[in-house]
């Protein structure tokens, strides 16, 4: 309720600020977006649809929606075109977090604010970016820890439970941040739960299944599994099913359709819901706020709520 109110207030403020901007510039805000690769997966396709809908619903905004098709050269050319067309702000979903930095610098030098969406560019480019709008992976990891701890408390095993941890691909920021969030938060909420082992599953279902098979042989008592995303979580679940081990609590992140289905079947406990619609709306709103002269935090996260078997009926099944 409280969050709702705050949201309503900020939205209203943003609308006012936007109106002020539109008046002072004698018209609408022109916002250009260059996306990574629409059509390669349904997350990106849904994102584009939601972005266009959100922009059409707002009278003060006009958008140029471009797609780089995964090609860095085309994305850089699109950045140059948007600069040349003198749009008021540019939103970029980087095809490559480093290759676009010089193009982002060009926009910055031309006085056009740049907002990065979904996945951030490398640190060398931070000086040329107004804001990053996307998911907060540290919080996602922390929330997964809370979901798991709450379930252990319900089951009355919070003083003895043993957990194994399957991480994403080593070196990926998303993987590192989620692991950090989980490992920092778990001892705070459930100090007596121990993480007995951590291995990478490389975002891959088969790899994760093998990792879990090894865990099951090695440890007789496993009460919980945390996986860096649902794809790996379901891989681990399959391993446990095949070995006939029951009663293990599975928690993932980035709720995939497979994870949602496993939850509905009662095999999988919980995850983190990350909606491409929220992602797209947040990016557009960040751009509007920046143009309205508001103080936007450099890392502007959108909310990715907890989803468990208990509240899953509040969420629609993910499209990916």
């Amino acid at each position, binding site marked *: 309720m409280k969050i709702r109110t705050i949201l309503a207030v900020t939205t209203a403020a943003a609308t006012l600020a936007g109106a002020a901007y539109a008046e002072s510039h004698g018209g609408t805000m022109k916002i250009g977006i260059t996306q990574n690769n629409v059509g390669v997966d349904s997350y990106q396709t849904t994102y584009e649809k939601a972005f266009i809908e959100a922009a059409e619903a707002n009278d003060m905004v006009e958008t*140029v929606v471009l797609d780089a098709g995964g090609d860095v050269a*085309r994305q850089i050319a*699109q950045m140059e075109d948007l600069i040349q067309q003198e749009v008021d702000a540019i939103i970029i979903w980087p095809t490559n977090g480093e290759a676009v*930095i010089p193009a982002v610098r060009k926009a910055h030098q031309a006085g056009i604010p740049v907002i990065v969406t979904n996945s951030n560019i490398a640190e060398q480019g931070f000086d040329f970016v107004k804001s990053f709008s996307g998911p907060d992976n540290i919080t996602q990891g922390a929330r997964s820890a809370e979901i798991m701890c709450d379930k252990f408390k319900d089951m009355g095993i919070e003083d003895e439970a043993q957990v194994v941890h399957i991480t994403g691909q080593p070196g990926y920021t998303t993987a590192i941040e989620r692991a950090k969030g989980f490992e920092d938060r778990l001892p705070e909420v459930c100090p007596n739960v121990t993480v007995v082992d951590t291995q990478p599953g490389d975002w891959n279902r088969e790899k994760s299944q093998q990792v879990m098979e090894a865990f099951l042989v090695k440890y007789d008592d496993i009460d919980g599994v945390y996986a860096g995303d649902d794809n790996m979580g379901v891989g681990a679940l399959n391993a446990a099913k095949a070995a006939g081990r029951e009663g293990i609590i599975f928690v993932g992140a980035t709720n995939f359709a497979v994870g949602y289905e496993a939850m509905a079947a009662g095999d999988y406990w919980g995850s983190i819901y990350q909606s491409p619609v929220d992602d797209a709306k947040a990016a557009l709103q960040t751009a509007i706020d920046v143009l309205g002269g508001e103080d936007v935090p450099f890392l502007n996260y959108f909310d990715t709520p907890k989803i468990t078997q208990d509240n899953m009926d509040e969420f629609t099944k993910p499209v990916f």
Partner: protein
Amino acid sequence: MKQGTLSKALKGGAIWGFIVLELVFFSIAGEYLSLSDKAFMDWENMLLLFKQSAPIGIIAMGMTIVMVNGNIDLSVGATFAIAAIILLDSMTWPIFAGLGDWVIPLAWLLALLVGTALGALNGFIVWKTGVDAFIVTLGSMLGYRGIVFMFNGENPTSHLNWTLVDFAEAEFLGFATATWFLLGVTLIMWFVMARTVHGRNAYAIGDNREAAVNAGIRVGPHMMINFAIIGFLAALSAVVFYSESGSVNPNDGQLYELWVITAVVLGGTKITGGAGNVIGTFGGVIAIQLLRKGLGHIGADTSTVNLVIGLILIAVLFLDKQLNVKGKEELRV
């Protein structure tokens, strides 16, 4: 006689007519549909057009001589990616650590050498085995791409050097660095094809290989040189582009071979060899980039570019065929 020159002029001019059509269409449509207050044919926008055409354009000049030769090279996209990796990675090699920014020309040279060698390897296999160039380069396209993925897995290879970026972003007489390279390569390849023995031989071999052999042209080495040229140009394209961006994804350059071939065919080069020129190819490259830019300018879905280019490609080939048939009928009379 007069009719013949007319149809020839029509064929050669088709691509330029199409470019004019695009300019007119996007200028008018832009007035109504574009968010920008600037005209499509704004001078700055036209300068950008040349610059953005460079990555595909530079390779297309090499593809012209290879296709006139009666061959084709499908591996250019993968060669492009390998050269980019060599360029960016070599700048961080410990043996060059003491060089400071002098590592840049060395990295360029290495990338160009590797590209030339990969191209020459294609040519050598075509020469010695006699297997069709389509099959040989289809194999090397997959093989070279495999090397790219072996190098760094799925991860990008990155090295951002601001000195290099500043050089690549520099402008001289209003033209960006990449534009100068594109124009330079076009001029040199035009000279090679139109004014040298090597160039004339390329047409002769493409037109009738047997006759060329009988005339004493050493066909094998000749084709190998042309493959080395296109390998060099694919690497040059990578050098020019990645100097400005500093990071290469393992799938960069994918489908470039198809865009390059499309540009060359749009420009009037015969897919069977023996006819074509780099000026036409230049037109083909500009036409493709103009279409990409224009559709973005009027806010059309970017994916329509592929549909439109496909239709135009077929239309151009159809027109070419019609004009050729007419030419023959004239002769019979």
